[in-house]
């Protein structure tokens, strides 16, 4: 059978060109289906990317714990007792909770920092080496290092400055090795944090021990930041929070039922929650996507049925001139395949183009600091290819059923049909 000969294809393309409206209508159904599908999937992904990006500024499994006041009397201790953390709390938490991966004390103080003529008021944060991983500190290869254990042990006067601080105090100059004044004390810059932070003023990390000394904390710390591993569900996270509170209440001799003695903020829990929302959104998008596809399929099917009916007479003529049923059937089906492929591809290009356009508009319009809702919308190309294939298959089936009937009809009857 000479089915896939170039000449056959040429005849089909010729027929399509001469019947532009019909071809374009069929094609439009396909292109539109694929286009909408891509927009839908892309938007879903963009939304997900945007929301997820907001979490990435800190480790998604981060927990922040801070001491408050006891709210009930317990074992002879009065209520409203001010509670405080010190170094032993950090060690104790690590020992008690194997889920903890990184942990760091935190001492925060706002202070002026100056270099030559430039100065600014920044948040000075006394943190431990682990804090790099808790807060996703980004230090580029040639821009020094974060605080290490030696800095802590020797209470070194070194500082890691954030992007904003480096830009304000040093402009284009490389800050590494230079000395800045924090208050009146000189600190040597050992690293620059290039993490794109969200709108806060600049920050300077100094060793925790140095901060304790500098701000008269003795062995105390203001807050504790930690990350946990292996907690995947909201239930896991709640259980961990309960255990953490119970342990701290015991250690600080606080009433076991006192829920407000320590503040606990668990980013992991809100992350897990958001992700579960996205899971629902994913399902929803999938559902709408399938509906869109079905719409497209119905459109193609409909047009194919009408097309074949409309062409019954032509098929009759072709048969009288010596076309076998197989050649006619093949040409109908090939035509359908060519149309769905070409227009499916077009819809795909259009979809990719639109998503890129949306992306570039959003990228140029929003500041760094904005809470991101939509970011980098993209579509899994495999899904799109699969959908296109599905539409092609659908065009085939939708064309095949009426075509088989039309081809069986006697030429003389076909030619009488008007």
């Amino acid at each position: 059978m000479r089915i896939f000969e170039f000449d056959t294809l040429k005849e089909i393309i010729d027929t399509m060109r001469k019947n532009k409206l019909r071809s374009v209508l069929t094609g439009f159904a396909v292109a539109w289906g694929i286009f909408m599908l891509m927009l839908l999937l892309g938007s879903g992904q963009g939304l997900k990317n945007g929301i997820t990006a907001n979490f990435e500024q800190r480790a998604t499994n981060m927990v922040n714990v801070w001491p408050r006041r006891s709210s009930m009397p317990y074992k002879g201790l009065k209520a409203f007792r001010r509670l405080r953390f010190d170094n032993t709390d950090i060690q104790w938490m690590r020992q008690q909770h194997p889920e903890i991966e990184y942990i760091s004390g935190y001492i925060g103080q706002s202070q002026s920092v100056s270099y030559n003529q430039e100065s600014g008021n920044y948040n000075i944060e006394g943190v431990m080496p682990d804090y790099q991983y808790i807060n996703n500190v980004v230090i580029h290869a040639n821009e020094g290092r974060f605080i290490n254990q030696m800095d802590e042990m020797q209470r070194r006067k070194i500082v890691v400055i954030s992007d904003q601080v480096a830009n304000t105090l040093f402009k284009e100059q490389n800050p590494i090795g230079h000395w800045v004044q924090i208050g009146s004390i000189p600190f040597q810059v050992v690293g620059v944090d290039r993490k794109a932070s969200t709108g806060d003023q600049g920050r300077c990390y100094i060793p925790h021990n140095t901060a304790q000394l500098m701000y008269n904390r003795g062995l105390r710390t203001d807050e504790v930041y930690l990350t946990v591993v292996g907690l995947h569900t909201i239930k896991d996270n709640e259980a961990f929070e309960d255990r953490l509170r119970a342990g701290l209440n015991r250690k600080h001799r606080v009433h076991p039922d006192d829920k407000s003695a320590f503040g606990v903020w668990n980013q992991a829990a809100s992350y897990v929650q958001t992700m579960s929302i996205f899971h629902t959104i994913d399902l929803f998008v999938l559902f709408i996507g399938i509906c869109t596809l079905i719409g497209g399929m119905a459109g193609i099917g409909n047009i194919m049925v009408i097309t074949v009916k409309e062409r019954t007479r032509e098929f009759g003529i072709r048969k009288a001139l010596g076309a076998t049923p197989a050649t006619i059937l093949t040409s109908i089906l090939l035509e359908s395949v060519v149309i769905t492929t070409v227009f499916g591809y077009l819809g795909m290009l259009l979809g990719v183009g639109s998503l890129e356009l949306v992306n570039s508009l959003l990228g140029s319009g929003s500041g760094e600091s904005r809470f991101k809702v939509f970011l980098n919308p993209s579509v899994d190309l495999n899904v799109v290819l699969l959908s296109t294939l599905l539409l092609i298959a659908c065009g085939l089936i939708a064309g095949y059923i009426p075509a088989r009937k039309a081809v069986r009809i006697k030429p003389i009857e076909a030619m009488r049909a008007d």
Partner: protein
Amino acid sequence: MDIDAGEYVSIMGASGSGKSTMLNILGILDDYDEGQYVLDGKRIQHLSETQSAAYRNKMIGFIFQSFNLIPFKNALENVALPLFYKGITRKRRNQMAMDYLDRLGLKEWWHHYPNELSGGQKQRIAIARALITKPSIILADEPTGALDSTTTEEVMQLLTEVNNMGITTIIVTHEQSVAEKTKRIIHLRDGIIESDIRKHHENL
């Protein structure tokens, strides 16, 4: 009823007399239940669609009352179409089609679409299309039914020429004047051959 190669026959009869049915059977466009039809020594009955298509393509040229040109193809493409189903290359097809159009005096009209042509021109294109495969039989179903008397004359002249080329020509018609042009007139009534008259004078 026997029709020899090269004969020029017209089949006449009132509507409903079975002349169209007969033509359909002769053209292998339709199957039949009783009797037998032998074409070129081969019995034609219960053929598969593919077989009958091959016979039609090789041996039979059709001419219809309503022309049955494909509306979205121009004159040249319409004439060339049977050759496509013969598997002849596009270039060769178009050459041959142009040649036939030229013979029928329609060379200048090759790029026109059927709706831009007169009835006579359309029928001449249909004749060119029927001739292009060099068939042994031309079957014409009321070829002049949709034409005025002048063009009817022209078309009949053409069909006579076709017959003179040695092609068996069978015309179904209810017009006496058309039948007069042929050399043998078969009258049908209610599906039965009523009369079969051979004329011995020469046309043209």
